[in-house]
């Protein structure tokens, strides 16, 4: 029993030491902009711009479902123009950032983990080291900056599309006019609703990129190892989103 506890303790200490060293390396790499800066724009396009279609697809259906759900819940009890308030506030503050984050945890986190994992098992990461290229500055920092900057942009677009989708649904399928829908939106809107969601989404982007990089660079074995890392990156990314979501709710609301 004591041996087992010792082994667990040693493993935990090893994990903490490796993660600490990794974090220190990544922090130091921030001071090497001549390596990471040229990579940022291409990564913003790959991780951000290329993710717009999936984010907007999700937003369209989120808006439709929210409008219909709100109408169903409010029937007879609450004025129907509250549909606009519920759709806008829920999408801006919660569903927009979280659902977009979850979708992008799959797309972006898996993309980063698979790419870096493949580089690791094919010795491309070792090759970078032998060429005296800082691996964190070349691979991790540009992806993390790109995801942190682009997630709020993609989320903002998803929020806009989600609200428009809810409005179209409300005016076409419910007994609600455009004026009534936007009356609800305006009546309960606060500036904080918008920046709260965008701050959250920036932190989601940062966490997903770090999880993807961390698991990718620790890949061992061949294709099977890459598969394991990819799955792990997505799971850790989703977990990080839920934890951060609760954290921001506690801190900012």
């Amino acid at each position: 029993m004591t041996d087992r506890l010792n082994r667990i303790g040693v493993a935990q200490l090893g994990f903490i030491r490796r993660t600490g060293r990794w974090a220190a390396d990544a922090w130091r790499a921030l001071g090497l902009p001549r390596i990471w800066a040229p990579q940022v724009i291409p990564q913003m396009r790959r991780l951000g711009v290329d993710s717009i279609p999936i984010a907007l697809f999700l937003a369209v259906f989120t808006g439709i479902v929210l409008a219909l759900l709100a109408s169903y819940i409010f029937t007879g009890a609450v004025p129907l123009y509250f549909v606009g308030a519920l759709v806008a506030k829920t999408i801006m503050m919660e569903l927009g950032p979280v659902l977009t984050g979850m979708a992008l945890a799959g797309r972006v986190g898996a993309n980063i983990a698979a790419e870096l994992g493949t580089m690791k098992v094919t010795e491309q990461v070792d090759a970078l080291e032998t060429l005296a290229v800082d691996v964190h500055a070349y691979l991790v920092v540009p992806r993390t900056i790109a995801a942190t900057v682009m997630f709020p942009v993609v989320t903002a677009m998803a929020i806009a599309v989600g609200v428009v989708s809810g409005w179209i649904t409300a005016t076409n399928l419910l007994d609600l006019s455009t004026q009534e829908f936007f009356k609800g939106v305006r009546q309960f809107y606060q500036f904080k609703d918008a920046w709260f969601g965008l701050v959250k989404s920036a932190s989601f982007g940062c966490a997903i990129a770090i999880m993807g990089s961390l698991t990718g660079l620790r890949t061992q074995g061949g294709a099977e190892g890459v598969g394991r890392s990819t799955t792990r990156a997505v799971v850790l990314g989703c977990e990080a989103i839920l934890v951060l979501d609760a954290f921001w709710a506690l801190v900012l609301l």
Partner: protein
Amino acid sequence: MIRFTDVSKSFGAKRVLDHFSLEIPTGQTTVLLGYSGTGKSVALKHIVGLLEPDEGIVEVDGQIVPELSRDDLVRLRSSIGYVFQFAALFDSLSVFDNVALGLRQQRRSEADVAARVAASLERVGLADQGDRFPSELSGGMRKRVGIARAIALEPRYILYDEPTTGLDPVTSAVIDELMVRTKRDLGVTGVVVTHDMRSAFAVADRIAMLYQGRVHAVGTVDEIRRTDDPVVRQFIEGRP
């Protein structure tokens, strides 16, 4: 000079290097021979600090590699070219950019980088392939790009990890000839990991045979050819 003194390295329960000691003299090509899994590539990775020994000392030009600061390790790595078993070219970069990557880290002017890349590709016979991507190259061409990437930095040492594995005999002979020419023209110290006997005899000044994680025999090509040691003879003759 590269020196291993009593180096041991384990991965989990498997001890790959077991009190491994070897001196690799400057200006010569030393071949590390041995069965798969005897620690040849592991030894090579210790030289550039990709792995750290569990016990023992790894020295390059008098510097103890695991004790180097990050900046000193970067300087050391800049003086060592490494040719990986499967070339380890960067998929997303063209041949030109693969060769240029290490040079750009040294903050050279783009004109200097272009001139050095062109000279390196010329040396390996790929002068007109700079715009192609690794996925468009044959195995032999990929290995040659790997060598061009290593020599572009004008290193003092070049480490070759299984440079002819998976190649046909003619392409293997081309790579062997390239390694010999690189040593002759650039005066670099070579360390070649292989289990290809023909390649070993073609490029080596000295041969060290690894067996069960340590050096079992070491000598010139003629000494190894003529040895009566049963382990070495069995390996050279490829007897089961």
